[in-house]
């Protein structure tokens, strides 16, 4: 029963509050640009509107085309069950679940790209190629960061990696590595969620799109699933960063949940600020930046290994 309650709390936090983060990001960007901006709950209205519409399917598409959005929602939900939200421990934890966590997102990416290829549009194929290239370059960074955390925690389970020892670890020499890990994870968060400076979630300019181009053909409820899946992914991937920066526990589950949500909202504001002050990188520069973060995370590993 205990397990059931924890899983329910985890999923409620994730499913209810994830779209709010996109609203906060959009609002922060609007304030920076001097506009009032859309209401904070706009992503919820958008989802409701899309769900009421009917969808149009191209005649060339098959069931694969629908598998993309479905996997895009299912994977973050599954991954969330392995990831502690702030001081709330994950409902499921076992040795080596960090690898499952990383490659669950690989499954989602495979289905998104497959759905894009299924439309038969060469343009969407190009978007898929870019997405996979960037993912390849971001993956070593994630793994290096997780190895650093595993070394500090001396464990191979995400719940232990992001456990209560982090508060003490910041004050030891390993704190330097933790700082580097936070920076690297932040870059990966921006890449994986196709945010500026790596990709612009709002652009519909043909040659600059990366992620957005793959979902051009989705409409109605499947497109709502795509948007919802992106919001869930942002929350699940942001959770470790919030935990690393706020390694405190209040002792009560409600307090912990509130603290986690406050941390996530601050992270969303931070992403909004980053998107407002940094210009989008040229496509050829992105691999350089990603290789740079890989080296940085590798350096963090050298620091904890010596």
């Amino acid at each position, binding site marked *: 029963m205990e397990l059931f309650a924890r899983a329910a709390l985890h999923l409620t936090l994730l499913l209810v509050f994830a779209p709010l983060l996109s609203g906060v990001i959009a609002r922060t960007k609007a304030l920076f640009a001097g506009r009032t901006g859309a209401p904070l709950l706009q992503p919820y209205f958008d989802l409701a509107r899309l769900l009421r519409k009917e969808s149009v399917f191209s005649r060339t598409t098959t069931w694969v085309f629908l598998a993309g959005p479905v996997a895009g929602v299912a994977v973050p939900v599954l991954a969330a069950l392995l990831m502690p939200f702030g001081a709330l421990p994950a409902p499921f934890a076992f040795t080596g679940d960090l690898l499952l966590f990383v490659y669950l997102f690989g499954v989602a990416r495979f289905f998104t790209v497959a759905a894009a290829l299924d439309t038969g549009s060469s343009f969407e194929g190009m978007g898929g190629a870019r997405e996979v290239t960037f993912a390849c370059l971001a993956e070593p960074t994630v793994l290096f960061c997780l190895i650093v955390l595993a070394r500090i925690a001396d464990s191979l389970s995400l719940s232990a990696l992001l456990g209560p020892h982090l508060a003490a670890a910041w004050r030891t020499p390993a704190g*330097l590595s933790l700082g580097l890990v936070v920076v690297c994870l932040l870059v990966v968060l921006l890449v994986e969620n196709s945010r500026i400076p790596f990709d612009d979630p709002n652009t519909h300019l043909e040659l600059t799109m990366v992620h957005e181009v793959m979902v051009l053909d989705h409409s109605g409820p499947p497109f709502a699933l795509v948007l919802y899946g992106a919001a869930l992914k942002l929350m699940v991937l942001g959770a470790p960063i919030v935990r690393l920066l706020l390694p405190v526990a209040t002792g009560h589950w409600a307090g912990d949940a509130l603290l986690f949500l406050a941390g996530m909202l601050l992270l969303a504001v931070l992403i909004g600020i980053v998107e407002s002050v940094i210009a989008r990188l040229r496509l050829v520069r992105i*691999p350089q930046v990603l*290789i*740079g973060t890989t*080296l940085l995370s*590798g350096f963090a590993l050298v*620091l904890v290994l010596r």
Partner: protein
Amino acid sequence: MAELSNLCLLLVILVNFFTLGSARLGACIHAVALQGAVLALLPLATHGLNGHTLLLAAGALALKGALIPWLLLRAIREVRIRREMEPLIGFVPTLVLGALATAGAFIFADRLPLIEAHQGGLFIPTSLATLFTGFLLLVSRRKALTQVVGYLVLENGIYIFGILLAEAMPLMVEAGVLLDLLVAVFVMGIVLDQINREFSTLDTEQLSALKD
């Protein structure tokens, strides 16, 4: 104070990576200025506040953090160049080489027969890594200005080594080194000017071709 100096040394290494990966000359010069300013903090962080360390810090801050970067920024404004073109070894390979060298410096420093106090610290590996970064910049870039930046980074590496000996090193020695550095940058400035006048570019490739 050990934490402050560790943080400074980490910043120095991050600046190393940045100068290796960045194509914009202005950003590189600013980064080296930041590195110089951070290095000025180091003697205070390791040996405490006294007249000797204060003078060391003030000298480093004035020269490495302000005067030389100002001269270089003025130079790029005069010759109107903004970016390094594709270097002899590309940006990503030099970045990878720099990271490998940094990792190597850490492994090498752990094997060195150091005195107890310096064992396991960040000073020696950072100094070796910075030396190598400066060396890489010197050999891999085409623009003469970036090579000057490389020379500055190389000197910063030596300076980090010197800080460990700051107690034993008379102030005159450090003042002499800083003066040397300034004179060297002046001389390089004159050479840059000559290269620019002769070829109307700062590309040192021109120098390796013989005139017919």
